[in-house]
Structures are given as C-alpha cells and as structure tokens.
C-alpha cells in the first residue's frame, strides 16, 4: 500500500531545501519544516536570515538562561545576539520583502497548485485564518520554495490541479520539496524532477492530485 510506505523524514526535506539557498543570500524561513532548513546549510556557505520581527542576520536560538525579551524571531522564539545583526521596524521589514530584497522564502502550505498557486493561510472549515506576513512574502520574495509533507494526515493530496482553499499568492511557487518528491510548477504543468529513494513515479502520482510531467532528467532525491 502506497499509503503506508515509508517517507523521508522532515530533516531530509529540510536538507534538500538547504541546497537551494544561494550562498550569501537573504532568506526568510516560515514555521514548521522551513525552520529546520537553517540546520543544514552546506559547509562553506553563508545565509543571512531575515525575520519580520525586525531582525536581519538572525543567529541561533538563545539558551533558556540567556533569553532577551527584545530579541525574537518571527515565531516568537528568543535569539542569540550575533555580530552583524541589524534591527529595523516593520515598515522596513516589509519593504525588504515587498521590494524584492529577500532572495528566497521557504514556506509551508495547505495546498499548492500545478501552476504554483499557494494556499497556506486558511482552512475553509474554520471560517477564519491568520494571514500574517505570508501573502507579502509570496508576492515579494524573489523565489518562493514550499517545504511540506506530500499529503495531509488523512493522506489527502496537498498538491492539486487548482487550489480549493483561499489562496495566498497566484503562480508564486517556484519549487515544491516534499517527503516524496521535488517538483517545479510551470505554466505547462507540474514537472517532477526528483523522487524519494524506493518510490516510483506512479506511486508519487497516486498521492498527487495534479498531473505530474516527468522531467527528462528525472532523478533520485539528491542531497
């Protein structure tokens, strides 16, 4: 059964995403798997983290006994002070995002469509959601990468032909990295670029509600 077959751990998904980050680039990480990406920056590479809490060049999280109430990331976690940090107001924080100064954002998602529409702010059955800064990141970052589980907990497809949930941004996603595959939304449809070890294209397709176009150079998940 495809449903019960073992998938890649979250850390491996994060490791795969980390390979995409440009050396010396400015990066904004969302909550969930995206947060883990910072643990897997390749040796010799440097990435500068932007947080809409008003901090540039965020370093590691602070130990419990050295938490500074005025040094937090976008998730409200306490940060260590590191050399080269800069503080700014929310106006500047979103100018950095909207103005195209942030090179990559890595976000989670409820749904992503074959053409790169992103839905990640609201589950319709709740009737309300928290948009936060996701919409600005989707519209403004130079590159939007989605890192997520391939299906939801009930094994419903999260990768769909058209989003049925309220969308965060249209055609904004340039790469989807899941615990089963790496995919690239294009105007022609969803191109399957890499597949997790032990999985076939047909098995991944079975858990995907959009038609997958196998890339000519389709390969195994590459770390």
């Amino acid at each position, binding site marked *: 059964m495809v449903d019960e077959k073992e998938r890649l751990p979250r850390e491996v998904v994060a490791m795969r995403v980390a390979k995409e980050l440009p050396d010396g680039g400015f990066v904004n990480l969302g909550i969930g798997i995206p947060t883990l990406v910072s643990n897997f920056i390749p040796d010799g590479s440097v990435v500068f983290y932007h*947080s*809409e*809490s*008003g*901090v540039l060049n965020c370093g590691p999280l602070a130990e419990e006994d050295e938490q*500074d*109430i*005025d*040094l*937090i990331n*976008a*998730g*409200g976690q306490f940060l260590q002070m590191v050399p080269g940090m800069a*503080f*700014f*107001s*929310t*106006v500047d924080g*979103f100018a950095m*995002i*909207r103005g195209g100064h942030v090179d990559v954002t890595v976000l989670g998602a409820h749904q992503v469509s074959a053409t790169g529409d992103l839905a990640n702010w609201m*589950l319709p059955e*709740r009737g*309300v*959601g*928290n*948009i*936060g*800064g*996701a*919409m*600005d990141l989707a*519209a*403004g970052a130079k590159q939007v990468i989605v890192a997520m589980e391939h299906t939801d907990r009930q094994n419903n497809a999260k990768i769909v032909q058209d989003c049925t949930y*309220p*969308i*965060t*941004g*249209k*055609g904004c996603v340039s790469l989807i990295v899941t615990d089963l595959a790496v995919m690239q939304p294009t105007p022609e449809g969803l191109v399957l670029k890499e597949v997790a070890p032990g999985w076939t294209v047909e098995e991944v397709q079975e858990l995907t509600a959009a038609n997958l176009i196998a890339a000519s150079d389709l390969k195994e998940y590459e770390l």
Partner: protein
Amino acid sequence: MPQGKLYDSPQAALADVQDGSTILVAGFAGHGVAERLLVALLEGGSKDLTLVYRDGPYASLGSGPLPAIENLVSNGQVAKIISPIPFSPGSGGAIEESWQAGWLDIEIVPQGVLVERLRAGGAGIGGVFLPTAVGTRFGADKEKRSFLQGEAVLELPLKADYSLIKVAAADTLGNAIYDGSGRNWAPVMAMAARITVAEAGLIVEPGELDPEAIISPGIFVNRLVASD
C-alpha cells in the same frame, strides 16, 4: 510653555479616550507591548473601540497583548479588530467567541499591507498600490492598476485616534529609542495616530540621548508614561 508630555500614570495619559476611538497597539509576538497602557485602557472603560494590532496568539510567552486584548473584548469595549493575526483559530477565548457570536467585527489585513496603510496614514499619502493582494480575496473588490512591475491593488490609508507604544527610552520631548525587535510596529503606529502615548523603560532629560540614534522623533510622540 505648553504642557509637558510627561504623565503621572497610564490612567491619566488615557483619560480622554472617547467611545468609538480607533487605537493602534504596537507589539510583535507579545514583545514591545505597552502593557500598563493596555491595563489603563481596560480600567478607563471606553466602548465601541476599534483595535489595530499585529498579533494576539502568543499569550504563552508571558504577558503578551492577548490577555489584555481578550480582557478588553470580554469587557464589552471592542467593536472591531483590524489585524493580520487577530486570534488563534480554534483556541477559544473572548475574541473568537465574540466574533462567532457576531458582535465583534474582524478585518483581516495582510501584515505588509497593514503596515503600508498605516505609513500612508501617518505620512499624508492618499493611498498606495501594492502587489500583495493581487489574485486573492483581499484584492477582490479593490481598484487595480498595472505598472511596469505588474498588477497592484489600491490600499487606503489608515489613521487612528491613539497609538499605544513601548519604547526603551525617551527624553521628555518624546524623542525615543527602542531595544532590538521591541521596535516592530511602534515607529509607524506613532506616526499614524493623532495622539501617541509611549510607555518608556527610561525617561531622561533632553540631551541625554544621541540625536543620531533617535528612531521616533518627538513630533510623533505626544505623551509619556514610565513603564514602572
């Protein structure tokens, strides 16, 4: 000499808040929040307030904005909330219950849109075209235009009667500085309100703060109270 900006208490600084006022509350994830001012707003009892804030759902971090805003809502003082993160869905609490009961109006605004609406309000700009809401429900009924960079949606300025901000230090003229990520929404909210009240960790005489380091010049800060 005009009356000084220094007030004896948060209650005194907010004594003239009228029913129906729009109030900006600075803070991010429970940090940089003017907690004493929020308590004073609760004690003052003004009603039909519109509150504008970034987030509420971080109460677990300590004395964040949520408990005070929850209290204002359960005290029947709030008619409307404008926020990108008004409450944590499914968490219960007064905001969610009042919204479900239909007597609390909630306007969700993307964070970067809200901040530019406030900036426009504070800077005398008639409106701003932003790409953020294009193709989403937030842009559905708004005027759109195409620019070299692509399509954008007209967002209107937002102004308020009061803003409640927290500053690390201010001189008695209202010139203020911040600590780290505690700055967040305070500078723009200070610009967008008719009366900005700052709760200051430290209040000093003019000349004691480096003019180069001032983030919110005193022209934006009308009243000062000490944070303890």
